[in-house]
């Protein structure tokens, strides 16, 4: 395409190109092909985070947080946990999703009888499991497992702030108090299905511990990959 032709893209043509009209794209040579490439159908690697998003949806459904939005607190808590530990969080959510699919709804009694099985908010306990009648007790526990993994991955100074953020209030509810979350999560993670080779239940100097003396200050390294494979297209922090 010569520069001459570039000047012929008038507003109508531009509007048609932006709207995705195939004829407009065919008629504008390289530019049209370029836009077609940019808007090609979604590829599998671009949907790698689907399981994590669904897990988040389930967790949010079961433990809605109607508090007023204090943006800075949420951003701080979530940003700290997610930005730095995004790989670990997504991995455990993905692991939770896979384990959920594999589970036939039968859980060890220790999980089925969790005191946190009936959340303190009354409306949550009265609501039937959304749209999946075949999996009654597996879902709440699996969501809690995912949250526990995330909590344990954030070992260090984040705990206090994290527990006050909406995604984790359900965890402190289930545990019966913020001071009980540690013990609750340790036990839950150790006994949850689909966690065969996963992270150790006690983590005195785990890879994710920010105070670890090994110098790995902000990156869980080997443990997450032992639990589940990274979804493709999910880069780690310091290069590939």
């Amino acid at each position: 395409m010569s520069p001459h032709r570039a000047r012929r893209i008038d507003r109508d043509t531009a509007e048609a190109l932006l709207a995705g009209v195939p004829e407009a794209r065919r008629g504008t040579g390289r530019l049209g092909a370029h836009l077609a490439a940019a808007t090609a159908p979604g590829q599998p690697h671009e949907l790698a985070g689907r399981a994590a998003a669904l897990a988040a949806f389930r967790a949010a459904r079961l433990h809605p947080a109607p508090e007023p939005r204090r943006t800075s607190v949420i951003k701080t808590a979530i940003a700290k946990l997610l930005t730095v530990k995004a790989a670990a969080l997504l991995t455990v959510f993905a692991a939770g999703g896979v384990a959920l699919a594999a589970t036939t709804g039968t859980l060890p009694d220790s999980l089925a009888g969790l005191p946190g099985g009936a959340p303190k908010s009354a409306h949550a306990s009265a609501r039937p499991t959304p749209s999946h009648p075949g999996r009654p007790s597996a879902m709440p526990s699996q969501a809690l497992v995912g949250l526990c993994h995330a909590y344990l991955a954030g070992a260090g100074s984040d705990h206090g702030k994290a527990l006050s953020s909406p995604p984790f209030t359900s965890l402190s509810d289930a545990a019966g108090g913020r001071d009980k979350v540690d013990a609750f999560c340790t036990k839950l993670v150790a006994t949850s299905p689909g966690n065969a080779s996963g992270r150790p239940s006690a983590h005195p100097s785990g890879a994710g511990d920010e105070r670890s003396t090994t110098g790995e200050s902000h990156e869980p390294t080997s443990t997450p990959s032992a639990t589940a494979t990274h979804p493709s297209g999910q880069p780690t922090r310091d290069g590939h």
Partner: protein
Amino acid sequence: MRLRTDAPGAGDQADLSPWVHAAVAGDEDAFGFLYSAVQPGLLRYLRALVGQDAEDVASEAWLQIARDLRTYRGEGGGFRAWAVSVARHRAMDHMRRQSRRPAQLVEVALLEQVADGQDTAGRAVEALATDAAIALIATLPRDQAEAVLLRAVVGLDAEAAAQVLGKRPGAVRTAAYRGLRRLAERLAGPTVPRPVAWRRATTRTGPPGSRRSVVPR
């Protein structure tokens, strides 16, 4: 080059309202459908803003989307616009935190492949072409890049794109048209100009010849 298949393209503007209503009511399958429909365009938009951190920022965004879906009332240009708005805020936060991270270059060979206009075959090559196309759009001035991406790749109409960007629709239209014209100019040359003005990567280097995405200023 026929790229639209049964699966919606990234710029598809089909009405998602039925699935949004179902997801708000708790239908997990509906939420999964929304994710599949919106994520490719959203991810590519983020790619242009934050480069390789696009997946991280996208996952943060979907966590917030999942959490806030209950309060979504259909405002602001539809679900796509709302979702990409959440993602944009996350990206802004991310860029503020990462402001000292150097930008990375796009392999010129990839840009030439796109400029070549060759018909692509095979998923791997398609993925490369898509990434390269997004990367080239990302070289535009920021307002033009965002306007083009929100319109064409995310699939917002002019009003919705304007709301996401917090600008007047006329300004967004102008930015998008200028972006397209500049893209056409860049694709027209016999060789793609080397982006010498970009800051070069210092800390984030991969193996030689590896593809790197661009992080615009």
